[in-house]
């Protein structure tokens, strides 16, 4: 996409993510041709949509589309995707006789779809199994972030209507694509939290002056800003690098950054930010859940450290 086309696309996405969420956003994205833009220019399609979706606090099935596209399973066919359980990155399924055993999560849209794909196993034996959603046990999760509407998915001996072998690299690539998308969503949500806190700091007057003039408040928001910029830079580098290694780093950095932003912004917004009369709580909830989808900052960080301690060297990344 050239600069003009990108700008136009961004403006349209800004409108549809601000005005719609859930099924309505999926429909609007369909009309806008986001699904066609995805294979044509992955980075533009993913970075724009997920950052704006995060900023608006909206939800969609776009994460499924990103994963399916990376797996090479196409976008047509109205498939849902079963994601790994909270905090994990390993495939949510395992082969069980002729069928599959399933334990994971899914986006809200999965219930409305006839079929879902379940990835089983890693390495050479990895399979993509298509199952009827009617055969799965779905529990709509209320939980910490009811508006996200995630679904807990379980099933034993679920018959597969189709199975296909996956290349060894397919699942790690799909996880990486999902991690980059979620990292953008975390950055978008973080930017909104910072915007809300900044606005409040400039308007709220105490001791005869806006609290934005107090260094303690300024430094908290500066800290939040730096955390967001760091995540944004890591994410840009992860796109250029393109490997699962840097995608996992960007996701972990964005997750931790969002926690930092959330903490400082909640403190600056103080009482009002603790009420449901203000939008902050929606984002505080959202980023905690997003951080834990496709591997949380905590587990990804520990795994990275184990890997580095094992090899006792650093990977050569970030060439000029």
């Amino acid at each position, binding site marked *: 996409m050239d600069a003009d086309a990108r700008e136009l696309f961004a403006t349209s996405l800004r409108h549809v993510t601000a005005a719609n969420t859930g099924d309505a956003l999926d429909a609007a994205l369909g009309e806008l041709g986001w699904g066609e833009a995805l294979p044509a220019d992955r980075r533009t399609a993913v970075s724009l949509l997920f950052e704006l979706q995060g900023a608006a606090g909206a939800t969609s099935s776009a994460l499924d589309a990103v994963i399916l596209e990376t797996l090479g399973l196409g976008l047509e066919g109205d498939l849902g995707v079963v994601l790994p359980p909270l905090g994990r990155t390993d495939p949510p399924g395992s082969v069980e006789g002729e069928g599959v055993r399933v334990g994971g999560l899914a986006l809200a849209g999965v219930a409305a779809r006839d079929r879902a794909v379940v990835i089983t196993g890693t390495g050479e034996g990895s399979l993509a199994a298509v199952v009827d959603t009617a055969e799965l046990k779905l529990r709509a999760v209320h939980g910490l972030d009811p508006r996200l509407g995630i679904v807990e998915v379980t099933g034993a001996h679920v018959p597969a209507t189709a199975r296909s072998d996956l290349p060894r690299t397919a699942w790690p690539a799909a996880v990486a694509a999902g991690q980059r998308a979620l990292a953008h969503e975390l950055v978008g949500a973080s930017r909104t939290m910072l915007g809300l806190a900044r606005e409040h700091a400039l308007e709220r007057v105490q001791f005869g002056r806006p609290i934005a003039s107090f260094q303690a408040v300024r430094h908290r928001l500066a800290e939040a800003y730096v955390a967001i910029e760091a995540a944004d830079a890591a994410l840009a580098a992860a796109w250029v690098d393109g490997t699962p290694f840097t995608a996992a780093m960007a996701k972990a950095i964005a997750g931790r950054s969002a926690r930092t932003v959330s903490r400082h912004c909640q403190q600056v917004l103080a009482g009002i930010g603790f009420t449901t009369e203000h939008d902050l709580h929606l984002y505080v909830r959202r980023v905690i859940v997003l951080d834990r989808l496709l591997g949380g900052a905590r587990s990804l960080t520990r795994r990275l*450290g184990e890997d580095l301690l094992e090899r006792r060297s*650093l990977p050569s990344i970030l060439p000029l």
Partner: protein
Amino acid sequence: MDLPEFREAVERWLDDNAADLTPDHGPTATLDEQMAHLSLVKRRTFDAGWMRWGWPEHVGGLGGSTLLRAYLGEALTARDLVEPGIYSMTEVLAPTMIGFARPELAATMVPRLLRGDETWCQGFSEPGTGSNLGALACRATRRDDGWRVVGQKVWTSLAQYAQRCVLLTRTGTVESAHRGITALFVDMDTPGITVRPIETMHGAPEFCEVFFDDVAVPFDRTLGDEGRGWAVAMDLLPFERSTALWHRSAYLNRRMERLLAAAPAGSLTATEVGEVFHQLFAFRARSLATQHRLDAGETLGAETSVDKILLATTEQAIYDLVADGLSDEVVLGDDPDGERWRSEFLYSRAATIYGGSAEIQRNIVARRLLDMGNER
């Protein structure tokens, strides 16, 4: 010359010349030895042409992208051939000369800095003016035959080695604050200048006090216009936080790798190592983006404060890890390796203080990047 071509040629040249370029003083060089070796490396790389790429032709450069400069410094620091702090002074001071000196002066002087024939220093901070640069008091008075400078600077890195100084002086009234500052390019052998190195916690007398007692400076050594020294300072400071930091990041990458190789089994926890590497990755990713913005001709400004904050945080995190993982070396080690780890650990404590403290950088972020208005 494009970057891939340059990269390949530089790497080959560094391989071929490794014997000449590797310091023979071991890991615990004195600052004198480090400075002497820096001059040697700069001269060799200048004479071979590499040091000239990325600098304009009218100051002795060979033109080309600024990324070439960024790469050369990365290659030299990553191979441990130069210490990044002293190497990157060029990145801070040469752009200022190019931007503000008379063209003839820049054409004469900049090649001497690039080639390592000269060392320059930066006279900004004063005893009464650490963070509040706009309040500086070192006075330059206009006489018929030039400026006369009276006053004192402090924290002036490498002043004891320097032939020249980019000096900020007060030429307006004290109340004129940032509007009454003039930048001068001063010869350090001018009568009336006294330099006193300061012993530091990490063992290298890198900073100095510099005293000016009626020092004569010709008018043609004025950088920019009289009273416009603030613009010079504001132009220079982002250069402290751009290519110089990319070089430093390459060095930190190397040192963290050394730490992983040297730390006894069980001395580091996976989570700590992962967290610190995340910080290093994010800092380097940010600095990388800054290098590309510079290459694209963008004017760098307040946003480089983010780079400095990330550097300071990352550097301290890495050396906190060193203090844990190589505890014996840092605490008890009196061999060269131990002394080097200890010195670096101690130096890292200053990362949130020098070059605009952590607090000043956050003030800049709040005022300039978050547009939160003034304090109080």
